[in-house]
C-alpha cells in the first residue's frame, strides 16, 4: 500500500515546523530556505497553506529529465532526485506544473520532496494535523468525513 501526504490548510497556523523538519532531514541544519515543503502566508486573507510535491503518477519532471536523474522509489512511490546524475539543467523545474521542484544554488542540483524514504518529517513535526501521511487512496478521507458530519439528517430507526 502506498501512502501520500494529506494537507489540510485550514488546520495550518503558519508555524513553519514542517519547513524546519524538512530542511533538517535533508540538509542537517534548520534552514527553511532549503525546505522541500513551503508554507505560504496569504496575510490579508488570514490563510496559511503548506504546499509540496504530490508525487504525480505520471510525473512530468521525470519525463522531462534528459539524464534520467528522477527515479521512482518503488517502496514509497516518491519521485526522487539522484544527485549523482542530476546536471542542474532545471528542465524539470519548468516541466512541473505546480512548481514543487526547485533549483538549489548551493549544490547546483534540484531538490524536491522524496517523502523522506517513507517517514516524512513534515508530517511528524506538524503540531496541528494539517499535514498527515495516509493511505494514498484516502488523502481526502478526512475532508469527506468533515463534510459528512455537517449533514443535518438524524438517523431514525424503523421498526
Amino acid at each position: 500500500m502506498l501512502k501520500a501526504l494529506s494537507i489540510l490548510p485550514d488546520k495550518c497556523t503558519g508555524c513553519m515546523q514542517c519547513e524546519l523538519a524538512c530542511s533538517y532531514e535533508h540538509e542537517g541544519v534548520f534552514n527553511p530556505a532549503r525546505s522541500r515543503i513551503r508554507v505560504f502566508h496569504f496575510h490579508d486573507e488570514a490563510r496559511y497553506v503548506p504546499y509540496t510535491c504530490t508525487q504525480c503518477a505520471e510525473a512530468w519532471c521525470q519525463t522531462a529529465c534528459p539524464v534520467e536523474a528522477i527515479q521512482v522509489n518503488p517502496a514509497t512511490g516518491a519521485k526522487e532526485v539522484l544527485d549523482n546524475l542530476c546536471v542542474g539543467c532545471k528542465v524539470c523545474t519548468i516541466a512541473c506544473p505546480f512548481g514543487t521542484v526547485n533549483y538549489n544554488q548551493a549544490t547546483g542540483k534540484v531538490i524536491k520532496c522524496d517523502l523522506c524514504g517513507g517517514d516524512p518529517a513534515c508530517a511528524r513535526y506538524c503540531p496541528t494535523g494539517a499535514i498527515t501521511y495516509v493511505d494514498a487512496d484516502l488523502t481526502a478521507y478526512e475532508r469527506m468525513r468533515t463534510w459528512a458530519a455537517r449533514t443535518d439528517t438524524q438517523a431514525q430507526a424503523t421498526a
Partner: protein
Amino acid sequence: MGWQRRILRVNLTEGTCNPEPLNMDWARQYLGQRGLATKYFVEEVDPTVDPLSPDNKLIFATGPLTGTAASTAGRYSVITKGALTGAIACSNSGGYFGAELKNAGWDMIVFEGRAPEPVYLLIEDEEARLLPAGDLWGRSVWETHERIQHDHQDPMLKIAAIGQAGENGVLFACIVNDLHRAAGRSGVGAVMGSKRLKAVAVRGTQGVSVADPRRFLQVTMEKKRILAENAVTGQGLPTYGTQVLMNVVNEIGALPTRNAREVQFEGAPRISGEAMREPRPTDGKPNLITNQACFGCTIACGRVSRIDKTHYVVRNKPQYWKASGGLEYENAWAMGADTGIDDLEAMTYANFICNEQGMDPISFGATLAAAMELYESGAIGKEETGGIDLRFGNAEALTTLVEQTARGEGFGRDLGLGSRRLCEKYGRPELSMTVKGQEFPAYDPRGIQGMGLTYATSNRGACHLRSYTVASEVLGIPEKTDPLVPDGKPALVKAFQDATAVVDSSGLCLFTTFAWSLDDIQPQIDAACEGDWSLENLLAVGERIWNLERQFNLRAGFTGADDRLPERLVSEPARQGPAKGLTNQLDKMLPEYYALRGWDENGVPTAETLQRLGL
C-alpha cells in the same frame, strides 16, 4: 553551535557595515539575546547618554535557540536606552524576522550613530548594505513592507520597520516586524527613528545548527508534547489568545479600569476573548478569524481579526477591511477597560493603526486614559484636546487620537509624550500610572499584590513580562499563591525575574513557561549549545543579567526612590471586587526583596553580590 558567532556592526553616521566575531566569553556568561546584547550595550554606551542622541546604540539580538526547531524559537529582542524611560530597554518580538536574521548568519546587529539621511538596512546572508529610504520616510510600516519587497522583487524578505510614530518621536513608538508583531515597549521605535533608520530587511539561507542534533530533536519533541497537553498552552491560548484573561482578571477584581480609578470593568465581557469569537449582529461574522503562530511556535496564540465593514470607523476605508493582527489582552485592556471603552471594532481599528504606524498600544491606551482623567477632572478642556470630548468611554476619541498621535498632529502631540510627561505638563503628575516613566499594564497591584513589586522593580519601567507572578497568584503556575497578600511575593518575584531573564536570552517565548519550568528549558539549551548549561549555571546567568541591567540604571541616575508605584495604588483602596478595601503593600515587600537580591537598603547591589555574580 546555537550561536552563529558573528555580529554585524552598522555605523549609520559613516554608512558602514562590518562583521565582527561574537564575544564567546560573554556568550558563556550571558547566553544570548537580552543578556548578551545588554552586556554589549553596557560595555559600549555611556549610561547618561540622551536616548535620542547619536551616541545611544540600538541592538537587534537573537538567542542561541532562535531559528531552531524548538517550539517558539523565533524570538529576537531590541536593546537600547529607552526613549520613554531613560532606563535600559529590552523589547522582545516574535513573528518570523528574528529567525530570518539568524538564518542569514548573524547573532545580532549593533546600530550606532545617526544617518545623515533616512536609510534602511538590507541583509542578504553575509552581504549587508545601507540603502536610501527617502521615499519610504513618512510611510507606514505596512507600506514600507510592501515597497521593500516589491523593489527587491523578493516576497520572502522579512522586514522590521518603524512607522510614522517612530519618525515623529512618539516616545512610546515601537518596532514592528512581519506587519503585526512588535518589539513594543519603552520607545525603542523612537530611538530607531532618531537614527533615521527606517527598516531592516533580511533574507537568510544559511541555516542554523545545534551542538548535539540527536539529543536536541529528541528533547524538543518531548517538550512540545508538554505544551500540547497543557490546558493553557494547548487549549486556552490557541483558542482565545492572551485575551483568555479578560474575564478572569476582571472577576478577581484586578482589571485597572478608567485610569485605575476602579478595578473592575462592567464592559469586560464585551471586549473579551469570548466576545471576539461571537458572531456580530451586523454581519453575522466574528471579529476573530483565526489564530496564527510565530516562527516555530506550536502554541499559536496570535490573533487575526477583520473589522466589521459597516462600522463607522472603516466604512469609507476599504484598506482596513482585510485581515490583520487582532487584539491581545494587554491591548484590549489599555484601549478598552482603562479608557472605559467597550466598542470591540473601534478598539480593533486602533490596534491596526498601532501596528501600521508602530506604537505601543499599552502605553498609548494608558496615556489616553490619563488624558481622559485630566479632562474629566477639569485639568484640560476642549481647548487642549482640539474640540474632542475626552470623556471615558468615548470610542470616537480613541479612533481619532490614535491617528493624531502617530502623525504628531493636534492633541496627539501631547499624547505622544507618554502619560508621565503629559500629566506633569498639565500639573497633575499623580494621575500618571507609570513606574520609571513607563505605563503599567493590565493587572491591578491592589488585586494581585506580587504585580506591585513586579512593576516597581522592573528594570525597564512598569511591565508584566519581567516577573509574571499572575501565573502563580491567579493561574496557580507553578503553584497557587494568594493574590491578596504580600507574603512570599519578594521571593516569587526574584525567582521569576531571574528565570525570565534566561528565557528572554535563549530565543524562546516566555509564554512557554505556562507549561514549562526552567527544568524543561535547560536541556533544550544544553543540547543546542556547547559548554556548561546546567540549571545552576542558567540561574546564575539570569541573576547576573538582572543585576547588570540594574547597574546600568543606577549609573543612568535611577535610585531606590524610583522603585515606587503610582500613589493611587498604595493609598486609594480598591473600590469593588475581592480586593475591595486593599491597597498594594509595596512597603512590606520592597525591603525583603532588596535583602533577597543582596542589595543594600537603597537598592544598590553590595560588593559581595557583584563579586558572586562576576560583575
